[in-house]
């Protein structure tokens, strides 16, 4: 039953990953894997721009993911008893492509943009700012509803009934949040946050549209090296993105480990 989904995933993502690995070890002037070289990896790891891009991506990813997760938990808790229409309205940004949101953000938030004209000069410069606030803002706008949807899926009637059970056994609002709601939502929240983090860490269209000129994100770094170095750029881009993928996987494993180690002692 799972074969079609697994097959598609392996073909699309596994194939792309294998292609990137091959590209990163291919000599800049051509040749097969029998003449493989670490040149692209050496160049990327020795490039201070890559290091800056890595930290910029990591920082914006962490901030965007944590803010989205916190907001999603709050919104889902408030929305779970609301009407289906209101819950659908919250999910509105999910199908809108990231690039469109980024373009709208530029139109509205760039210096001299629509927001400046309507509201006067904005106190913060959110487009092309050094800290990447615009990037974070776009991802929070896009990813929070996605996480809200995941959380609302587990906050059904069953959870409501369990909360009622806890209430009639003397457990107050915070206790119910801690012992009933949190254990039910933490797994989908964690998995959803990991998906969001992996996506944000390697995405390039939003940083390209609203991110600072420097540092680039990992995605925009890969794009730039491909454009600036016609001979070895593709190998370096592949190496940079593979490092990003390895970092994402390592980060996800570390979070999972931490999550297991820090399980509420009262729940064991």
């Amino acid at each position, binding site marked *: 039953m799972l074969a079609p989904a697994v097959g598609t995933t392996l073909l699309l993502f596994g194939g792309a990953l294998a292609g990137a690995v091959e590209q990163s070890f291919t000599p800049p002037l051509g040749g097969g894997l029998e003449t493989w070289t670490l040149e692209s990896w050496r160049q990327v790891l020795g490039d201070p721009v890559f290091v800056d891009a890595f930290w910029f991506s990591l920082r914006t990813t962490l901030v965007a993911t944590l803010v989205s997760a916190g907001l999603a938990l709050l919104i889902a808790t408030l929305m779970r008893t609301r009407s289906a229409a209101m819950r659908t309205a919250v999910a509105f940004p999910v199908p809108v492509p990231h690039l469109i949101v980024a373009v709208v953000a530029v139109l509205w938030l760039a210096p001299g943009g629509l927001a400046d004209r309507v509201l006067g000069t904005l106190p913060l410069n959110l487009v092309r700012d050094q800290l990447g606030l615009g990037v974070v803002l776009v991802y929070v706008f896009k990813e929070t509803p996605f996480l809200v949807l995941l959380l609302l899926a587990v906050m059904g009637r069953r959870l409501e009934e369990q909360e009622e059970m806890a209430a*009639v056994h003397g457990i107050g609002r915070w206790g119910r949040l801690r012992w009933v709601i949190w254990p039910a939502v933490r797994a989908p929240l964690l998995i959803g946050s990991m998906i969001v983090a992996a996506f944000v860490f390697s995405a390039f269209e939003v940083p390209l549209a609203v991110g600072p000129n420097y540092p680039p994100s990992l995605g925009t770094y890969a794009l730039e090296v491909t454009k600036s170095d016609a001979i070895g750029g593709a190998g370096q881009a592949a190496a940079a993105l593979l490092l990003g993928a390895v970092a994402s996987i390592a980060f996800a494993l570390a979070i999972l480990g931490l999550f297991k180690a820090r399980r509420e002692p009262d729940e064991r």
Partner: protein
Amino acid sequence: MVVGPSGAGKTTLLRAISGLETLDSGRIDLGGRRIDRLPAHKRRCAVVFQEPRLLNHLDLLDNVGISLLARGVPRKDRRSRAAELIDQVGLGELAGRGVKGLSGGEQQRVALARALCAEPDLLLLDEPLSAVDPNRRASLMELILELQSDRQVTTVSVTHDRAEAAEMGQHIALLIDGKVLQSAEPAVLFERPETERAARFFGMNVISGKVGGGHLRLEGCEFPVSGPDGEAVFSIRPESVLLRSGAGPEMTVVESVYLGSHVRLRLRAGQTEIESHVRPGEAPASGEKVRVCLPESGLWRIPEP
């Protein structure tokens, strides 16, 4: 014990008492204190719901001791107290395991232990036997009655099953359409209902006719009765309706259904229909004509409204 048909408002009543529903009007007092303005967790009313509502991420001991968690009782004490209660509900050997794999009856026992662990001022049971295998109902009912009697905890239980109500309740309130129609001891409700609806709910025959000259005259037959002349409504339990040869009006058996412990007969004469329960060996076949006797001891004249 509150008994009534589906949709009568039984569960709503329990939810209102426990604080899960807000009152539109009126007040609720418990042991001299007004509780209707308190949130559910401060009312000290524990509920055993129709479905056990156990938390899958906790083992049985932590499920039972969940009320102690809120009170900040240390884990060791909490689990030890929970273990005592798990033992009392007959699941001692399962104490350390998780919720998965427990039968409906076992889960409901855990829910009962959880409610008792909260040491409530009032224990509310919302059809606690409805999700339990019929063969295990009797033992769970026995356990509930035993624990309730040992602990002397005031209990309000609701059910749609009149037999269960009679077995469990010392006092029964009949709730229909959100109103208490009658409230009394089980025997009174089952034999001396105050209204036709109450009589029908408790499974009695309701017979309307005219009393005159010591007889209740019905369409197609008449039965000897005492009491003043005039229009009257009588009720009689199907078990009290006797079939015998000799005297008494003749009725035809139009339906005969074997139910294990007894046979249910539907008897007809003209427009008058009466239900009778007889022992399996004594049941006439469908279509047979029988003489019917309604003994005065079982016949109850429903008071005029």
